[in-house]
């Protein structure tokens, strides 16, 4: 069996299992971890398809950057807020089914049109002469230079959106608020540690 096939059959079950695991686990951080495993398997598949540059990008950007943001949000927003998730997602459920079905159809059509159920696109080997990264550069910066430039506009919009959403302007604290805060003693009790636990 050629090496490609061995690697594929090792990682394909892992990627499917991790995807299912991500859907089934209750804890949001565990789900994110499964998603990272899945991204990693996807990166290995890029490698199998002779695209080592995409392999690196997949790990750096998806597994590295985007999942860090995910974990930040999950960690810091307090997952243990107590509201059952299915009560908040009434509209989303039918919508998810619809989009999922659409996605399956789209995948089918794209694969059918793209490779016609062949296992490998033959052009990859000739395109990759002189290195995959160089090949990506050659196409990206000449033939597709306009989409490339538009990407920077996309990043610009994303940065502005992040600022608008996340950045709160410094708020001036009024004297009344300070008085109110200073005047009311905090009623929460601070227990003394170890009083009853000591042997």
């Amino acid at each position, binding site marked *: 069996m050629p*090496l490609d096939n061995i690697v594929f059959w090792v990682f394909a079950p892992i990627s499917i299992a991790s995807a299912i695991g991500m859907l089934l686990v209750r804890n949001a951080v565990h789900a994110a971890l499964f998603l990272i495993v899945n991204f990693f398997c996807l990166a290995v598949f890029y490698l199998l398809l002779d695209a080592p540059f995409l392999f690196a990008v997949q790990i750096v950007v998806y597994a590295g*950057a985007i999942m860090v*943001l995910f974990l930040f949000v999950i960690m810091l927003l307090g997952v243990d807020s107590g509201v059952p998730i299915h009560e908040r997602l009434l509209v989303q459920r039918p919508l998810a089914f619809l989009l999922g079905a659409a996605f399956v159809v789209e995948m089918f059509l794209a694969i059918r049109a793209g490779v016609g159920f062949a296992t490998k696109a033959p052009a990859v080997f000739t395109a990759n002469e002189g290195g995959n990264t160089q090949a990506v550069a050659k196409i990206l910066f000449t033939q597709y*230079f306009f989409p490339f430039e538009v990407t920077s506009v996309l*990043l610009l919009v994303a940065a502005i959106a992040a*600022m608008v959403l996340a950045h709160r302007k410094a708020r001036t604290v009024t004297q009344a608020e300070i008085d109110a805060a*200073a005047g009311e*003693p905090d009623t929460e009790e601070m227990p003394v540690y170890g009083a009853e636990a000591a042997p």
Partner: protein
Amino acid sequence: MLIDYLPIVVMAVLAGVFAVGSLMASSMLRPNRPNPVKLSAYECGNDPVRLPSGERFSVKFYLVAMLFIIFDIETIFLFPWAVSFRSLGLFGLVEMAVFIGLVFVAYVYIWRKGGFDWSAGEIAPNEADEVVERERALFTRSEQEVAKPPDVNEWQGAGRAG
């Protein structure tokens, strides 16, 4: 091609075996005498208090994570350009200058809006003096109030009023 990665796989297995093996070997050899006090989270001797759930952290951290993604994607685009910008010549340079320039506009925007400012807590620099004055007034007034015999509950309340 794929065979190039074989040593890395071997190294990953070796490092993994080392890490897991030392964890397991240690768990067999070391003493294990837990008690509730030992197992409680470290809190300088107090009973552990969980941070209140909900919004626990400065929103700056989210902002940093999001800005990181934006700039990370930008640098990832730089890598293929870096290996082949000689053959792309002046066209490639101008192309990348436009790209970096556009992202730099975002950078300037964020800077002007104070997205990179970590100083002085949440207080804008121009308001700092005002806040100092107000705090000072508060401090002197409370000193007189605190002059009465200290009550532990109130003492804590005043200290944690922020």
